[in-house]
C-alpha cells in the first residue's frame, strides 16, 4: 500500500511508554502513515504554530490522550473541538484510562462525526486500537 493512500495520523500522548507503543502500532500498520508524535498538546501546538495552521499539515486522524497537557486546566477534548470550530478538518480518537462518560455525546452535538474513544486497560490490543482508529476516521470521512 503506498503512502498516499494511507490515513495520516499524529499522536498526542504524555505517557512515554504508551506513546512508544502507539508509535510502533501506527508505524507498522499498513492502513496508517504516522506523521508525528507529541508528548503534550503544547508540543503539538508549537509545531502547528510554526506551520501557520495549514490545512495540509493537519493529519486526517489525531490520536490523543484526554489529559495530555502540561496545564491542568486544558484537556485535549475541548482543545480539539475548538480546532474543529476553527474549520480544521480531522477525526479524533481519544484514549484514556479514565472513563469520561458522556464526553463523545457532548462533542457530537456540534460536530456529529469523527470522534472516537478507547479505554486504556491491560486488555487493550493493537488490533483494537487500529480498528477504533479506522472506524473513527471512516465516520469522519463520510462527511467529506
Amino acid at each position: 500500500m503506498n503512502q498516499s493512500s494511507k490515513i495520516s495520523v499524529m499522536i498526542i500522548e504524555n505517557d512515554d511508554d504508551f506513546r512508544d507503543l502507539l508509535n510502533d502500532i501506527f508505524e507498522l500498520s499498513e492502513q496508517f502513515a504516522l506523521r508525528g508524535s507529541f508528548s503534550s498538546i503544547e508540543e503539538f501546538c508549537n509545531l502547528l504554530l510554526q506551520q501557520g495552521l495549514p490545512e495540509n499539515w493537519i493529519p486526517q486522524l489525531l490520536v490523543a490522550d484526554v489529559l495530555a497537557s502540561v496545564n491542568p486546566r486544558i484537556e485535549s477534548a475541548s482543545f480539539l473541538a475548538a480546532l474543529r470550530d476553527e474549520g480544521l478538518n480531522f477525526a479524533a480518537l481519544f484514549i484514556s484510562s479514565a472513563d469520561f462518560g458522556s464526553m463523545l455525546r457532548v462533542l457530537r452535538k456540534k460536530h456529529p462525526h469523527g470522534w472516537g474513544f478507547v479505554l486504556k486497560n491491560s486488555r487493550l490490543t493493537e488490533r483494537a486500537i487500529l480498528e477504533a482508529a479506522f472506524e473513527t476516521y471512516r465516520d469522519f470521512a463520510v462527511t467529506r
Partner: protein
Amino acid sequence: MTLKYLIELLRRDRMNWAPVLLIFGQIIYMGSATMVLLYELDDSHVAAVTTSIFVGMIVIIYTIVGVARTSARLLQIEKQDAEIRTLFEKYVKNRDLLELIDNQIREEIGSWIHGTLQPKLVKLAKDVRNSKSEELEQIAKRIDEINEHEVRAYAHKLFPPALLVSLEVGLESLLENRAELVLDVRFTSAADLRFSILNQGCEVTLSENSARLSVGRNLGYAIYRMIEEAVANSEKKFGTTKISVHVGLENDFLVISVRDNGEPLAIKFEFGLGLSVIEAFSQKYEGTMSLHNVTGGVELLVKIPYTPTTFNEKIERSKSKDRS
C-alpha cells in the same frame, strides 16, 4: 422609645445608674435651689440661684439626651452582634458539615488504599514472582478487576473525570438515563471556547474571544454534588418516574432546579444528610436552598450569587492576582 431604652440599660448594667443618679442629683439640687429662691433669698441671691437652676436644667436635658442616644446605639450594636453571631454559628455548622463529609471520604479512601489495595498489590507482586507462566493470566485478571472496579470507583469519588472536561460533560454523564438536563447554553459546547497558541513557552491559553462561561472547578464540583444528592433523593421517593434538572442564570444568580413527580413533601419533614449536604454547599457560596411542593411533584431550588465570567476573564483575573 427613649424611656424604653433607658429602662433596658438600667436593667442590664449597674454602671448605667451613674448618669441617672447624676440627673437625679441635679433635680434635687434644682428643687432645693427653687425652694431657697422662693422662701429665703433676698434680691442679691436671686440672679445667682436662677442662673444655677438654668444651668442645671441644661445639664439635665443634655445628660438625658446623651444617655438616650448612647443607649439606643448600644442596643442597636447588641442586636447586630446577635445577628452576626447567629449567621456565624450557621456558617461554622455548615463548614463543619462539609469538612466532616470531606474527612469521611478521605478516611474511607485512605482506609481502602492502606487496608485493601496495598495488601492486594503486595500479594499480586508475590504471586508474580512465584508463579508459573500459566498463572500469570489469572494474576492479570485480578489486577484488572482491582483497577477497573475499585480504583476507578474511588478515583471517581475524589473527583469525577468527566468534570475535568467541562460542567456540561460532567452533568450529562451524571444524569444519563436518570434525569433530563437543561443547561444554560452559555455553559455548553454551543458557546465558543477558543484557544490562542502563544509562541513563548508553547503556552496554550484561552483567547479573549472565548464566550463560554466558567464556574470554576470548585463551584463546578459543588453544582455537581448538589445535583447528585438531589437526584438521588428524588430517585428514592415513592412514585418518582421523571426527574428534570435545570441549570441557568437569572439576573445575578446561578439557579439550579431539580424537579420530580414523586410523592409530595409532608407538612413537617426533616432534613436528611443529602439535603444537609446541599444546604451546606449552597451556603458555602452564599446561596439559598428551598424545597417545596409544586404542581405534580416537588422542586428543590438553589440560588447562588454568580457574575457571568468567561473562561478568559477568569484566567486573566487569576494572572493579575498572581502578579500582585
